């Protein structure tokens, strides 16, 4: 038997109707109960609170955090930066590459060119220059591209200040 006849013969319509109704009513009752359960609990909690007169003092954690963040942000502006001979060499190399790339430049391209030219520890030196703020983010539309800081002087130190 096929088609609608088969459905009717197997009580298909009835089963489907009953099935959908049961699933819906089950979840409907459950959702009704859940929404009221929350209200009931909230009501009970309020009553409890009223009885206890419990007061919760705000923790001054936020103020502390803000203060710490401010302290972290406070950065020292260095006008003269002392670099080891090796760092000066890499710095000059990087300046040479970026002159060709043009400012603002992409750090990825800078690294690619540095690697191609076999510059020693290009990643480490890039990190160092970023830390020393010799490089800064161009910001605005050019965010993520970098420029060399103009107000910083490079001085050659005799000691190596590498890690």
């Amino acid at each position, binding site marked *: 038997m096929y088609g609608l006849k088969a459905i009717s013969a*197997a009580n*298909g319509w009835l*089963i*489907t109707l009953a*099935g959908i109704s*049961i699933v819906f009513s*089950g*979840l409907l009752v459950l959702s009704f109960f859940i929404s009221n*359960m929350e209200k009931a609990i909230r009501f009970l909690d309020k009553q409890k609170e009223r009885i206890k007169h419990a007061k919760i003092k705000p923790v001054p954690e936020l103020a502390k955090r803000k203060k710490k963040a401010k302290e972290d942000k406070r950065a020292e502006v260095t006008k003269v930066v002392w670099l080891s001979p090796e760092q000066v060499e890499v710095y000059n190399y990087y300046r040479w590459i970026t002159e060709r790339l043009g400012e603002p430049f992409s750090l990825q391209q800078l690294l690619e060119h540095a690697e191609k030219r076999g510059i020693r520890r290009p990643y480490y030196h890039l990190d160092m220059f970023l830390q020393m703020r010799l490089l800064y983010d161009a910001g605005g539309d050019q965010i993520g591209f970098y420029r060399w800081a103009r107000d910083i002087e490079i001085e050659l130190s005799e000691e190596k200040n590498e890690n």
Partner: protein
Amino acid sequence: MELVINFFHNTGFGLVTTGHLIMITVGLMFIYLGIAKHYEPLLLVPIGFGILMGNIPVFKGLGLGIYEKGSVLNYLYFGVRQGIYPPLIFLGIGAMTDFSTMLARPKLMLLGAAAQVGIFVTFLAALAIGFPANEAGSIGIIGGADGPTAIFLSAKLAPHLVGPIAIAAYSYMALVPVIQPPIMYLLTTKEERLIKMSDPRSVSKREKILFPIVAFLLCCFLAPAALPLLGMLFLGNLLKECLVADRLAQTARTALIDIVTILLGVTVGASTQADVFLTGKSIGIFCLGAASFMVATAGGILFAKLMNLFSKEKINPLLGAAGVSAVPDSARVVQLIGNREDPSNYLLMHAMGPNISGVIGSAIAAGVLWSFLLK
């Protein structure tokens, strides 16, 4: 010489048929999809290997095949035949699921109910094309997108179809990211996909503890046949939420569910022996299963749109697609589509609500079908 020839005839090489080779290819494909494509690997790898185990041509009478009484595989298959494994998996699912996304916004539960329409529409379609009622019910449940529920119901109603139904259910669950998006795009407008959901309220611990108890009582009074599945689901959840039985919850959601998943996967895979699996019925099951998934997805989405007609706070209709209970894959698909329209729209956590209620909905639907169709 004759001895050697006889021995050769009794080896796999001598007994192999085209059917075996086809099924071995299917098994290898499952293993490939699980390992290389990461499609539900925890399920597809054991099922795929099970298919290989079930399709090694063996000499009948040696007590090796899964359908041969007394064989090791037959003993392991007992858990599938008697519907023991699915409730144990539900225990683990309960112990690993936080229902608070659903508790925070109970009206989204209705999306989980609406998606179950797919089960019943497919049930009707299967009847119409000539499947007997018990088989039609088992095929329809594929639309619930819940493997253990599909195995449970087919083991009760049509044990001979457990293999193809389980394979279809798990295959389509793995294919949720492929099946659902076209339907989601087709049934929603760009404006609807851009709807942002407000932050849900926080749910207290007491609500979380009360929920499994109350939900169990309510659902099982309404559909007692869903007791084995929902009972274990809510017990698992109570173990998780009550905190005093954390050791049990931990076992249920780790070791126990893993062991049962391995046994279920391997035995379901092994039950797909070529002579049982490669039939016209299996093709029908696969076609109807896919339709069932699509109708379920559409049902959820359309119901969300219907709810929007009557409610002040609009629901993103994409959430309706998460009503099919493939957790968390369908919620992930909702997130993906919503995010594609508006990168600042995060629907994942909102979609978990209907997703989880879909699990409850499909278990109730299985209970209803079982009680109506059991002869």
